């Protein structure tokens, strides 16, 4: 039986007529409406034009991006929806984490700094999504970037309304009659948590407890030692990346402060120069004013060089942040795997129970001459349930295998890319530090030379 991998969302969408991957995202710009909306722009978009065209590889057709009407901009809520959709549809993949919701009060929301900060974060997020070899080609992302008009309401509605939906079926569930077709095999591919099936949630929770407390050995275990090793390494990486990225941030801020203060010093000296020049009476003053001016100019120059150096250093920080995000994404992907495994285990344990019941009923029925009609009817019902559960189990196993494969592919990809990315990050950092430090050194060396007569006179 085929298990559709995508969630029910796509039932509502018309089939896409262009298979082109979404174009690389280069900018996200906010525009002023009462609720923030975001307009993703791509490569050849020009400032001020309401629509932009993308420069895609020749085979693709251009797709219009942002329509002029403000209502078709994206709200942050849409981004949250996109993230949730991707999490549902791409289990096992390392999906870059989305920016925080930052539930702050409206006063802070209006502040320019917050807007700029969020804008950058969104830009990064969308770019990373687009760079992912699988997700970058996804329909969800493409729709988000390109569809006109408002995005359709998310199907991932809150748990409360879902519970209301299913409350009607609850009594039957509690009496354990699976045959009321609660289980649609496709639903199996979604994790139980946050889903609609209360009974399934309870069962898997029970199974998890059984597993954890080690009373009963689960029928399928995570035996893949290689996987466990790599998972351990990933956790290690996360543990070290967190302080590393924090300290990198602090370093950049300190460098920034030095540059700014140097600029402030230069400015103060410029004012002093101006003052001395205006009030010159003695020749020594003129010399002093000239000296002060050269120092001021050098300080301002150095300040600018510091700022430029920092712009490069920020890229270093970016790589660390990106990989930190990936370790978090990996955690999520690994837990997809765990929950998929848990589903398999639960179903297997269910089957065991059902089969046992059938055996018992058949045994009891065979003792009665001519059979026990009510018992036999019960057996038939159970056999039906078993059949459905078997289907669900196959689906679940397929899903589990799929997620395992995704995990493995992603781990391989990460290992490959991480080495190169880290190396180029370090190289870029070192080279820019060397280059700018040399420039700053030469600025000051000139001044030291010009003022060296004062040192000589002193000795």
């Amino acid at each position, binding site marked *: 039986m085929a298990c559709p991998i995508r969630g029910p969302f796509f039932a509502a969408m018309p089939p896409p007529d262009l298979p082109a991957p979404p174009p690389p995202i280069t900018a996200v710009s906010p525009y002023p409406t009462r609720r923030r909306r975001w307009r993703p722009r791509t490569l050849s978009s020009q400032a001020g034009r309401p629509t932009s065209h993308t420069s895609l590889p020749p085979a693709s057709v251009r797709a219009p991006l942002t329509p002029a009407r403000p209502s078709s901009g994206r709200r942050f809520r849409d981004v949250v929806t996109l993230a949730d959709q991707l999490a549902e549809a791409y289990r096992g993949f390392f999906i870059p984490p989305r920016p925080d919701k930052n539930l702050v009060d409206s006063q802070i929301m209006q502040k320019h700094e917050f807007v700029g900060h969020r804008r950058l974060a969104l830009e990064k997020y969308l770019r990373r999504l687009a760079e992912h070899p699988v997700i970058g080609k996804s329909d969800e992302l493409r729709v988000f970037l390109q569809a006109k008009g408002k995005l359709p309401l998310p199907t991932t509605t809150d748990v409360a309304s879902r519970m209301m939906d299913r409350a009607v079926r609850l009594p039957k569930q509690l009496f354990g009659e699976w045959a009321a077709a609660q289980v649609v095999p496709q639903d199996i591919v979604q994790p139980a948590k946050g889903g609609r099936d209360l009974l399934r949630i309870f069962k898997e929770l029970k199974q998890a407890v059984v597993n954890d407390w080690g009373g009963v050995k689960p029928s399928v275990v995570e035996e893949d030692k290689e996987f466990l090793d790599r998972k351990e390494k990933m956790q*290690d*990486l996360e543990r*070290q*990346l967190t*302080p*590393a990225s*924090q*300290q*990198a941030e*602090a*370093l950049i*801020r*300190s*460098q920034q*402060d*030095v540059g700014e*203060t*140097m600029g*402030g*010093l230069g*400015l*103060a*000296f410029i*004012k*002093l120069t101006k*003052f*001395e020049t205006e*009030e010159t*009476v*003695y020749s*020594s*003053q003129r*010399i*002093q004013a000239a*000296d*002060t001016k050269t*120092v001021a100019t050098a300080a301002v120059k150095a300040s600018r060089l510091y700022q430029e150096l920092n712009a490069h250093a920020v890229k270093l920080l970016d790589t660390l942040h990106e990989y930190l995000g990936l370790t978090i994404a990996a955690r999520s992907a690994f837990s997809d795997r765990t929950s998929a495994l848990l589903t398999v285990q639960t179903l297997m344990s269910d089957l065991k129970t059902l089969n046992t019941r059938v055996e018992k009923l058949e045994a009891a029925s065979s003792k009665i001459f001519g059979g026990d009609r009510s018992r036999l009817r019960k057996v038939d019902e159970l056999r039906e349930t078993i059949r459905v559960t078997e289907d669900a189990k196959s689906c679940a196993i397929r899903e589990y295998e799929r997620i395992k494969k995704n995990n493995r592919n992603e781990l391989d990809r990460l290992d490959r890319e991480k080495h190169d990315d*880290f*190396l180029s990050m*370090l*190289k870029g950092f*070192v080279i820019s*530090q*060397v280059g700018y*430090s*040399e420039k700053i*050194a*030469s600025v*000051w*060396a000139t*001044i*030291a030379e010009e*003022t*060296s*007569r*004062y*040192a000589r*006179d*002193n*000795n």
Partner: protein
Amino acid sequence: MISPETSPPRSSSQSPRSPSAAPFLSISVTDPVKLGNGVQAYISYRVITRTNLPEFQGPEKIVIRRYSDFVWLHDRLAEKYKGIFIPPLPEKSAVEKFRFSAEFIEMRRQALDIFINRIASHPELKQSEDLRTFLQEDEETMERARSQETGIFKKPADLIQIFKDVQTKVSDVVLGKEKPVEETDPDYEKLKHYIFGLEDHLAETQKQAFRLVKRHKELGQSLSDFGKAIKLLGACEGNSLGKVFSELGAKSELLSIKLQKEAHNLLMNFEEPLKDYVRAVQSIKVTFADRANAFRQHCELAETTKLKEINLDKLNLMRSDKVREAEMEYRELKAESEQATRRFETIVRLMNEEIVRFQEQKTADMGLAFHQFAKGQAKLANDIADAWRSVLPKIEACTVSSQHG
């Protein structure tokens, strides 16, 4: 007994911080030692005088002095040498004293050393008897001399208050807030305006310099923390990439140390000279007040003398028997008035010389400070470049191996 040179000491236009060739008078303030406990704690300094001048007891003399001794000397000179810009002292700083950080002690020592040497190289001040007392007398005599002054300047708190009063009085008097007996010399007005403006500008640069010192320290700390974190991150990675990380981390920690060093250098050789000149400008303002007082006295006495003269003429005409008395009074008053005028004129003359000297000194001292600043920054930047550059070979090795692997 070494017979000293008999040639007269050379006057003025020497490099302000160093003694002349021969004859010479060279002093160093060294060896700060903390004495006493708790609130009574203070720092004592060793003051070493080397000279070949005949007025001194010998070629070398070592005495122990504390901050209040320097204050005593400063105040005595300020009383006696009106019109001269007395070199400034570092602040009393009642708060930091309790902490007595190594940095604070070093800053103070340096400032005191500069103070005493400036006096020693000033053509007038170096001849002061009080200076010789300060440099040569034993500690008990010094303490007695110091406590005699407590009649005028009592506790530090009072001193601060009096200083504040003087400051406001100076501004009031100099800016002409107190009533109108003031000079109208346009050049002098220009000078006053210049000095007030200079104080503001210098204070601003000093503030920025101090901030820059702090930023250097903070950057040093950040580099140290970053280095540690990067090293740990490297431990996660394998082989050659891991080595790059740990080399980067090690260099980062090395640079942290260099930054702390440069922060100290910046403080002592750039920020402190700026602060020193802020104080020097404030000292000039005190001289302005002295001049204004002298001018007022001269005017008042001249006025009073004139009145007395008129009165005397009147009495003469009336052939009164009060004439003799009045004449004596008049003559006394006239002498006083002439003295006051002379005092005022001395101050004006001295100030004119002093301001030239001040500007020359300022140019030289600030020039040196700029030189130290630029030299320090250049060295720091080169050290940074060198440190990071040394990581490149490891990065290259890593790149090559990954290309082959």
